[in-house]
């Protein structure tokens, strides 16, 4: 991968940005995420998570499966606030 390769497409984070964060002392995906926003966009890191894990594994001399993953949480894909609000109202109605 070239340094200018976009690793996180949602937040426009390059490999160079990732390496800079690791050089500054980041040891995990969670730390890199907080410094660079990589993995915070609409896809929630589906592409960049594994690419960054590879970089971390290489630099720290560990295997990819030993890189700590950020917590996976809902929603799996972006959901409209209106859909969620509607669901709440319907469930409230059923409980009454």
């Amino acid at each position, binding site marked *: 991968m070239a340094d200018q390769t976009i690793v996180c497409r949602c937040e426009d984070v390059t490999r160079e940005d990732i390496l800079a964060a690791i050089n500054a002392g*980041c*040891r*995990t995906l*969670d*730390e890199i995420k*907080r*410094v660079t*926003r990589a993995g*915070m*966009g*609409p896809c*929630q890191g589906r592409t960049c998570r594994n690419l960054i894990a590879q970089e971390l594994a290489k630099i720290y001399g560990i295997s990819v499966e030993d890189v700590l993953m950020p*917590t996976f*949480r*809902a*929603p799996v894909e*972006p*959901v*409209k*606030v*209106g859909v*969620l*609000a509607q*669901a*709440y*109202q319907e*469930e409230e109605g059923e409980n009454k």
Partner: protein
Amino acid sequence: MKKAYDVIIIGGGIVGCAVAFELAKRGRSDILLIDKEYLSSGATGRCGAGIRQQWGSMLNATLAVESTHIFETLEDYTGYDRSCGLNQSGYLLLAYTEKEWEQFQENLAVQHSLGVDSFTVGLDENIYQYVPHINTAGLYGATFCQKDGHADPFHCTFAYAQGAKKMGVDILTYTHVDQILAEQGKVKGVLTDQGEFSANTIINCAGGWAPGLAAQVGDEIPVFPERHQIMVTEPVAPLGADGKYMPMVMSFSRKFYVQQTPHGSLIMGIGETEPISFNINSTWQFLEKCSKVVTDTLPALKELRIVRQWAGHYDMSPDRSPVIEFSPHAEGLVTICGFSGHGFMVAPRTAILVANALCGEDDSIDIKMFASSRFQSGKLLLEPSVV
């Protein structure tokens, strides 16, 4: 690595890092700061990131106003080479009852005595100049302060940490403090999973975990962790008036807050009754309830998509104000906790207060009033305006 220090700080959130920085600035730089994960991994990195000066108690307003002044120049103040993300897009506080509105008038008087430029916003066309999409149904009144806003909790914490490091502070991450060591009524050091470190002074800034550590030497601090959930939308163009970001919109009676960050995303949360617990799991129920509560006031947000949610702890004290406890059982131990959900925005000034006390310097605020003995004496530090 060194094994003996003047000061050990437990906890690398905004409070621990700011205290390290302020102590080092005053010449006490022989410090080891320890975090069980990475800097800002606890409550700081999970907070709503709001900065507000529209407080009700003189004490909180003072801490917040003076902290905001530091946030305004934090990069220069700490020598940080990146942005701390301060965006003063304002807070619009909503009152839904006459009683709440009366409280707001009292709050404004407190704020004005400290020079805060907060004011009443008319519910006619005036309010739409701040939040064009607001639904004013049921609204009794509103106040606004432009200098309130948002800052990046990660970068603010890293700024303090980097500044402290430059002055000689050592930082040890991914290290768990198992035990505070004390002997004959005096602290000796800490036992960690990386071995023992000795110190004359230990500053316990472990947030929700701080009371548990303090209890090891016999201190009883009635502060408990409580889960609070947050969700965030995709980034969108500025939703405020005149191409500005939408300010924080907040209600204490309807218990919600929502703010557009400089990134364009909207971050929001609600106040819920939660059991005492270290649980920070996210729930689907929260997504639905928060969506309902927030869109009652801001229907336009229905069209935005939620991309992520998370949770963190408030470290709740009985009067919702921080506890600064100089241990009566182990000399040299200071515990700072109980910020009850607004620690980020008052951390800069609180750190100065603690550093002044530990370095024998004068301070305009009396640090003794923060001792947990106030819960027996009844001299509480009550705050009327929290979500």
